[in-house]
């Protein structure tokens, strides 16, 4: 076997897990993310900028605060600062590729915590060692030399010690994070939001697993670091993260419901806590001791139930033993030591404070601007989720699709066979997630983040469904207060459901590994790609690169080199363009980001609703509303004086027919006239 491949395979399959398993557990998900990112972004990684819908990167972007609602704050400012050091197109490619790596590594880390934190950090080999220190295969030996793993090694050991490391828990604990990583970095949500260019939202999506992990573990500094990508992303990324992080922080401390399994878990974990003396006060310890015997009975009952699934029991039970034995068991996995429901508010206070502080860059301008900005309730109808497959809107949302814009759907996404495969994968993933939190798993503890993530996933799905099935609710809220405006694009809040499904996929692959040979479980890593294959290669050309024509750079130099104050008015009076030099891909007007002075542009949005019907979502910027009214006046009415009174110094008209606009600006001076652009000083 080719040497690199052999190394990779042995790492995946768990052979020599003590040495290589930890490396793959840490780096494997990130490498999966990198590979999937390269596959998805390949055409967008060439020279030039990838420009599509809201994804607008420009060369030498200046640092400037926008007018109106701060939708691109602080993402634009961060990009501008980075572009001062590194070329903007490199910054864009690094961000896009980083999204995949961050998302995949986070999902892998989260599932690694849930299923095998110690295995991921080198205990696999130690736990799996026999008396003589010889590593048994994977985790099977953790049951001791007389366990089933040892029997397999002693007996027909040829199979147990096969080069692939079959018959071990090691494969499961290594493949499960990879499966979660693959699913979280390759699904309809990520694909559609990428195709509509919302990379800033995807920063929040990519950082979500890390944020959940940090919220479950506690600590303001840890959470702040984990939320940094979302903080850079801005309002939508932070809202999606807050929707997830706050329930996780609130519910990580809730005691489990009374039941035999939970009593058993309470006993074992409290025992471990007492052993290391790290947590559990004396009152809690005493209570734990009183349920010791009942807990033992509960564990035994759980084991008996799991006899029907010997393979799964082997894997999960071995992992459980590692948790209980390990003195450094992650607090993210211990819910018994956490406070009760009475302190839910105090649990939320710190994460809420972190979220608010990190949101200040956009929150302050938003609160200031909402005094005169308007959020049009018509946006609810325009941006409601839609069915992008044969299973209706709900089916689309459950399979993480359903974005409002049909042009943002992955090509071929509506093929019935593929949609059915995605739905089947979704059902398996949801079942796996439910099983992860179910007492039926017996000896494996429910992760501390499970309840919160479940609540966030349901809440996100409800918000998304509201736009489609009860649009009156978000419409009334937005009409009451413009601050509810972000609710109009409800599908964005499906992100926690994607994370929950990724965790469920990991559980399913663990079960698959328990029932089947390792190659089948490893092959299952490809399933997320197989059910959405046309996301590859930039969704087959939907993502690509383009160079700005030279005249854009010249106009930029002229305008940014002028020290005189005054805004720039960008025409034609529409937010989106389809330039031939960009392959006809629709993109937000680049002028909105290219200049160091305020830019007046039409931030009204026009959405086709089928049958030639258009939904118009009104402007949010007050100055845009006033200038729009001016432009809508008689076609021959002069505008120079009125534009000067609005503080406009330059008018930039893009498009071959826009030179006719010059006739409406008597007294203005053309500064630049090119094939595509006309720049006029008013």
């Amino acid at each position, binding site marked *: 076997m080719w040497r690199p491949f052999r190394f990779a395979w042995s790492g995946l399959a768990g052979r020599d897990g003590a040495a290589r398993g930890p490396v793959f557990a840490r780096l494997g998900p990130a490498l999966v993310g990198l590979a999937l990112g390269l596959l998805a972004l390949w055409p967008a990684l060439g020279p030039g900028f990838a420009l599509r819908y809201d994804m607008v990167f420009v060369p030498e972007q200046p640092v400037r605060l926008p007018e109106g609602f701060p939708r691109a704050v602080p993402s634009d400012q961060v990009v501008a600062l980075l572009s001062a050091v590194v070329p903007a197109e490199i910054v864009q490619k690094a961000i896009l590729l980083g999204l995949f790596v961050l998302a995949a590594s986070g999902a892998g880390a989260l599932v690694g915590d849930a299923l095998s934190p110690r295995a991921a950090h080198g205990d696999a080999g130690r736990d799996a060692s026999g008396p003589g220190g010889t590593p048994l295969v994977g985790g099977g030996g953790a049951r001791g030399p007389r366990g089933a793993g040892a029997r397999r090694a002693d007996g027909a050991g040829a199979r147990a010690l096969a080069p692939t490391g079959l018959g071990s828990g090691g494969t499961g604990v290594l493949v499960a994070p990879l499966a979660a990583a693959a699913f979280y970095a390759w699904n309809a949500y990520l694909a559609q939001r990428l195709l509509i260019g919302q990379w800033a939202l995807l920063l929040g999506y990519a950082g979500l697993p890390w944020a959940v992990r940090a919220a479950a573990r506690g600590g303001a500094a840890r959470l702040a670091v984990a939320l940094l990508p979302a903080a850079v992303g801005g309002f939508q990324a932070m809202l999606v993260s807050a929707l997830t992080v706050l329930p996780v922080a609130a519910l990580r401390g809730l005691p489990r419901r009374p039941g035999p399994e939970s009593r058993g878990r309470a006993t074992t974990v409290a025992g471990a806590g007492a052993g290391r003396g790290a947590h559990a006060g004396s009152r809690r310890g005493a209570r734990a001791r009183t349920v010791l015997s009942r807990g033992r009975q509960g564990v035994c009952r759980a084991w008996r139930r799991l006899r029907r699934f010997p393979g799964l029991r082997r894997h999960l039970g071995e992992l459980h033993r590692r948790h209980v034995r390990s003195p450094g068991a992650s607090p993210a996995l211990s819910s018994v030591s956490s406070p009760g429901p009475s302190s839910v508010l105090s649990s939320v206070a710190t994460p809420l404070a972190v979220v608010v502080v990190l949101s200040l860059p956009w929150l302050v301008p938003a609160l200031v601007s909402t005094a005169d900005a308007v959020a049009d309730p018509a946006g609810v109808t325009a941006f409601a989720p839609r069915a992008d497959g044969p299973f209706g809107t709900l089916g689309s949302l459950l399979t993480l699709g359903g974005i409002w814009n049909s042009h943002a759907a992955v090509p071929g996404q509506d093929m019935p066979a593929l949609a059915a495969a995605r739905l089947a994968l979704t059902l398996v993933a949801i079942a796996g997630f439910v099983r992860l939190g179910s007492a039926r798993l017996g000896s494996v503890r429910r992760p501390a983040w499970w309840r919160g993530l479940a609540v966030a996933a349901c809440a996100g799905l409800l918000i998304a469904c509201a736009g489609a099935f009860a649009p009156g609710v978000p419409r009334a809220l937005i009409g009451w207060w413009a601050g509810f405006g972000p609710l109009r694009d409800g599908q964005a809040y499906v992100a926690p459901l994607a994370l929950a499904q990724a965790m469920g996929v990991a559980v399913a692959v663990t079960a698959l590994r328990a029932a089947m040979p390792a190659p089948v479980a490893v092959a299952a890593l490809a399933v997320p790609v*197989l059910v959405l*294959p*046309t996301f590859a290669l930039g969704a087959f050309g939907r993502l690509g690169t383009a160079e700005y024509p030279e005249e854009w750079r010249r106009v930029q130099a002229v305008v940014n080199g002028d020290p005189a104050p005054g805004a720039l008015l960008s025409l034609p009076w529409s937010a989106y*363009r389809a330039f031939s030099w960009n392959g006809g891909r629709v993109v937000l007007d680049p002028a909105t980001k290219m200049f160091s002075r305020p830019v007046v542009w039409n931030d009204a949005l026009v959405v086709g609703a089928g049958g030639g019907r258009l939904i118009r979502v009104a402007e949010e910027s007050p100055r845009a509303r006033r200038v729009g009214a001016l432009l809508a006046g008689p076609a021959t009415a002069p505008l120079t004086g009125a534009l000067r009174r609005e503080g406009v110094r330059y008018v930039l008209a893009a498009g071959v027919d826009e030179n006719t606009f010059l006739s409406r600006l008597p007294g203005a001076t053309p500064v630049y006239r090119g094939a595509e652009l006309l720049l006029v000083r008013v």
Partner: protein
Amino acid sequence: MLKVLAALAVGAALAGVASVAVVNVAAPTAEPPNKPLYNYGDR
């Protein structure tokens, strides 16, 4: 053995469907025309 065969069959079916989807999508399609004005999108 039966489980493995079933898994292989499912995998082969998935790969087949994925291939069909890729072939369909990879076929050349008309690019949208050059437009100075454009909707944000269509539902």
